[in-house]
């Protein structure tokens, strides 16, 4: 079975008897990723883009190849549109400070945004407009259109798949609508990119962010896509060595993007590992991934639905890659503790979407999220542990 073979690619599952249902927080990393980083660290470890020596060239070459791999993965036209960042959070901060601060009149977000797609806009003190949701947390597209009509030059910043409720926004349609009103669009693909193909050319997004550690890659690395047309509008962000053409005490001539945004020594091993993660993902293929994960999610939902007093916050059929729920009269935190004691690792709490939780009138949920390696045995063990926990807490 392919599913067992995939599990073998991850050393974690040899080392641990835990049921890992927290892939939306961070994914486990396949051996090929760790090997790629190890090769850098032991065979051609050098700083990049600076030296004329061969070792430095080898490292630079691998780093730039990783950029190309990520560019192709996201279907971008030109690899200079891919900037390495620390992760999604840094990517959004970068867009806020370097672009939106000067060029956006306000920011329109959905009601499902992660704190990382709220706070950076607060910080540049732009009016924040929240698209109303219909029942089941789907966006009210008419309200979205009215916001666009009332707010020329807005930046629209949208989560693709919700990390807290597994809902996927119709971003292609929403981007097209936004563009009709002259708005630019940033997509937070932190949660979606590991589960479905992202085709930036087709989506026509203006900005898009992903994190390596949610894509079977290492921590400390991510990518930001900025459409080439917008490069001339973008100001420097974090500045320093490596980003420059010429430095004088009173002014600096910067290199073009992406280098302007990659000052200092970047996470070289991380970028190389990120490239290897994308290659791994592509070797498995989205056809398999989508089918496998949908099966697992359907299997979990089928069993969860039979549990008494379970509460979902969106249509069961619309949940992808993660499931959020509560059991009435039981605190999600109690469930989290007892599941953990039974070796089941899920996340409980507000999942970095406090405003959404407040809207729903709750403090948080239990969230189960799956990855390429999750299997039915994981779900069985989770359901069994959940039932026991409920019995203990209700009994």
């Amino acid at each position: 079975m392919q599913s067992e073979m995939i599990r073998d690619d991850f050393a974690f599952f040899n080392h641990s008897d835990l049921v890992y249902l927290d892939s939306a927080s961070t994914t486990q990393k396949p051996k090929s990723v760790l090997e790629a980083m190890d090769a850098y660290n032991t065979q051609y470890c050098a700083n990049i883009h600076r030296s004329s020596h061969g070792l430095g060239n080898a490292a630079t070459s691998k780093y730039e190849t990783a950029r190309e791999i990520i560019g192709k993965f996201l279907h971008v036209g030109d690899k200079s549109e891919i900037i390495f960042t620390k992760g999604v959070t840094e990517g959004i901060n970068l867009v806020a400070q370097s672009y939106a601060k000067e060029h956006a009149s306000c920011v329109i977000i959905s009601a499902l945004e992660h704190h990382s797609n709220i706070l950076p806009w607060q910080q540049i003190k732009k009016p924040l407009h929240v698209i109303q949701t219909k029942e089941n947390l789907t966006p009210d597209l008419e309200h979205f259109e009215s916001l666009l009509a009332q707010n020329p030059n807005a930046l629209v910043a949208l989560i693709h798949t919700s990390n807290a409720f597994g809902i996927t926004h119709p971003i292609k349609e929403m981007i097209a609508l936004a563009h009709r009103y002259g708005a630019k669009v940033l997509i937070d693909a932190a949660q979606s990119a590991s589960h479905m193909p992202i085709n930036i050319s087709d989506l026509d997004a203006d900005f898009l962010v992903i994190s390596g550690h949610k894509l079977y890659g290492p921590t400390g690395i991510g990518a930001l896509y900025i459409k080439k047309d917008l490069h001339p509008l973008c100001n420097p962000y974090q500045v320093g060595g490596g980003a420059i053409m010429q430095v004088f005490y009173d002014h600096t001539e910067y290199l073009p993007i992406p280098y302007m945004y990659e000052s200092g020594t970047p996470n070289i091993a991380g970028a190389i590992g990120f490239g290897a993660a994308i290659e791994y993902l592509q070797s498995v293929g989205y056809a398999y991934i989508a089918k496998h994960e949908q099966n697992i999610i359907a299997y979990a939902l089928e069993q969860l639905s039979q549990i008494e007093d379970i509460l979902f916050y969106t249509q069961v059929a619309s949940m992808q890659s993660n499931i959020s729920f509560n059991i009435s009269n039981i605190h999600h935190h109690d469930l989290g503790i007892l599941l953990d004691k039974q070796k089941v690792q899920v996340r409980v709490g507000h999942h970095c979407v406090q405003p959404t939780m407040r809207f729903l009138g709750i403090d948080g949920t239990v969230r189960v999220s799956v990855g390429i390696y999750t299997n039915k045995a994981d779900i069985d063990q989770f359901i069994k542990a959940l039932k026991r926990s409920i019995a203990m807490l209700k009994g």
Partner: protein
Amino acid sequence: MQEKLENYIEELSLFDDIMDKYEYIIDLGKRAPSLRENEKIDEYKIQGCQSSVWIIKELREGKLYFKTDSDTVIVRGLARILGDIFAAHLPQEILNFDTKELEKLGLQEIISPVRLNGFTSMINKIYQYAKDENRG
């Protein structure tokens, strides 16, 4: 404090199965007296906790006593244990107590390193109360 702590350590060590340990804590949590709604105010609430926890101090003959509550059963049980351990002691006795001792209870929640560790925040609240009394 040491004596009560050791009682709990002993009691908890009776359980071979970790689930039984938590069964016991849940039981404590369920049986612990609740605060009245009008007592659940910010002044008594623990900041920096993943769930809501309240601790109220009472002073009787110079000694401190604690009323506790939480919206989660397990934390309620844990708060109850804490309140009980520190109850009926002079502020200075509390301040002299080495909180590292509490790790011997063997409850993961106590040694959790997360930045919003409720248990640490609860202990801090109790220490704050003791300090306030000492000063006053």
